[in-house]
């Protein structure tokens, strides 16, 4: 773990990624202290200072009702990250269990679980989340539910593939011979070998969950006002291009920076942990 970190920090690209991720996480956690106008995360209106280009103290400018864009972006990070963590915390265990069971038990368990996975995987991810989100009420909880529903199959597929090849390995046969239970073999023998791939994918996915969540809210199917959200900020500002460019440019860059950071780190992890594909 420590060794991995040292390797990451010694490569300029992944160090840059670590810094970006650090900045994003830091600003999300300490938004209350960093944000110059913490109250602007809610439904505040200030018509004396609305739709202003970047100036002091509103370094990213103000939105259409006079709220500080910089403060709102910090709080949007907080919500996006929380959403990402919750989605993965639910999706990964589900996907891993399904993949392990299908891969190791085989037979009809394999057939049913993997066909189910195929069904989920054959609806374009965004479309599935949109449909679920639209049918339910657009709240934060439902947003998490919708994104989770589209996310677990990818882990099922990943773990399934690793399990299938690991199940042929000598150590699994050895465990079978000494009479270890199936549960033991699945979770104590095979699962540890899937961990590098899972960790790598989770790092990359933290970025991609932010990406998908912002896409949903961009279409008006995500977190609702007045909660700050990067996607809906871009959607709102899009109508005022190019004159009020700051309304779209800063939230857009905020998404790009966060996802790019997680991608750089995930990419480097993939090389260090040797879990390509």
């Amino acid at each position: 773990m420590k060794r991995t970190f040292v390797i990451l920090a010694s490569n300029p690209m992944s160090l840059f990624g670590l810094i970006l991720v650090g900045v994003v996480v830091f600003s999300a956690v300490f938004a209350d202290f960093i944000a110059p106008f913490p109250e602007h995360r809610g439904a505040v209106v200030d018509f004396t200072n609305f739709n202003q280009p970047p100036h002091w103290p509103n370094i990213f400018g103000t939105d259409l009702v006079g709220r500080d864009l910089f403060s709102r972006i910090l709080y949007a990070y907080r919500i996006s990250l929380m959403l990402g963590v919750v989605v993965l915390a639910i999706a990964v265990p589900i996907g891993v269990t399904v993949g392990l069971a299908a891969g190791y038990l085989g037979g009809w368990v394999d057939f049913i679980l993997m066909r189910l996975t195929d069904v989920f995987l054959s609806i374009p991810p965004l479309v599935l989340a949109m449909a679920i989100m639209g049918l339910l009420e657009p709240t934060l909880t439902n947003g998490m539910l919708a994104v989770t529903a589209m996310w677990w199959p990818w882990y099922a597929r990943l773990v399934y593939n690793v399990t299938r090849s690991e199940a042929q390995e000598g150590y699994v046969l050895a465990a079978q011979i000494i009479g270890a239970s199936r549960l033991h073999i699945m979770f104590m023998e095979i699962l540890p070998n899937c961990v590098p791939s899972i960790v790598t994918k989770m790092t990359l996915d933290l970025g991609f969950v932010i990406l998908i969540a912002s896409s949903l809210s961009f279409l008006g199917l995500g977190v609702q006002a007045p909660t700050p959200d990067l996607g809906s900020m871009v959607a709102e500002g899009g109508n005022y291009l190019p004159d009020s460019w700051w309304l779209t440019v800063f939230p857009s860059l905020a998404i790009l920076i966060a996802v790019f950071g997680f991608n750089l780190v995930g990419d480097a992890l993939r090389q260090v942990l040797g879990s390509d594909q």
Partner: protein
Amino acid sequence: MSPVVRLLAKRLSISVIVLIGVSMLIFTIARVIPGDPARIALGPNATAEQVEQLRQRLHLEDPIWVQYGYFVRNLAHGDLGVSLYTNRPVLTDIAQFLPATLELVIVAGIFMVCLGMPLGILSARYRGRMADNLIRVVSLLGVSAPSFVWAVILMLLFAFFLPLFPIAGQISDTIPPPHRVTGFLLVDSLIDGNFKAFFSALHHIILPAFALALSGIGQAARLTRANMVETYDKPYIEMAESYGFAPRRIANKFAFRPSLIPSLTIIGLDFAAMLGNAFLVEAVFAWPGLSRYGVQVILRKDLNAIVGTVLVISAMFLIVNIIVDLLIAYINPRIRLANGGRT
């Protein structure tokens, strides 16, 4: 070619099973949600009788499997029901909006393959050097933003700041659109021999298609690079080098084609994912595709239209995957000559 036919048959039958699964899944989600779809569709001003009538018409009183039975029976007749939003058959609506979306996705797919793969080849050929690092950063940036962000950035740069491309729409307002034959503007204008319309449509599609393709270009470049770097370690590449074949020929022929086989499946998936991302780009560029319709029917909880749209998009997705499988079979002689013998 019989192994390929067998492969096609197998893929088609699996796809049908998956499609049935998709319809059941989306149908279930659509019916178990809280709230009365009939009431939502008619709005708060409708009378209780009107709501009751609509419930009867939609068979909402019946158990869910009976409802699904009605759905399948109608589907067999090519009927996905009537949209509560437009009051027209769902299939008619989709047929109207889908071609514009498909046109956008196909052009973006061409960008993805024609730009992403060569970048990946270059990156692999100059691995570890400056060009490789540059391409890696650029392709990682490409996959690091949702397509609506790229759409906004590109629009700002190349439509507003440098007005090289039009801001929105599919064709200039001043140019009469061609007769609708396929629904694809680029194709229809060529059929009409209307080159003015063709170039206008081409001019309009470049920016949105590029925005849609950017993450795919990055993904294709990264994937091509990764698989080619692996291929470069194979003995047959050393053999090609020992015969003094030109490095460019080794990259483009001897290393690229074997690595294409593992890349293609995922590139196919990315291509299919663009069907979803097209919704985002269409919204930015006011592209007259399925996006606005899809978002509207979702916001209005228009059950028939939601189920129909998801089903049609999934069918497109599966078709793309079948085409990719056939391509792989064509490239990989081990599948094409399935009896293969030794491996």
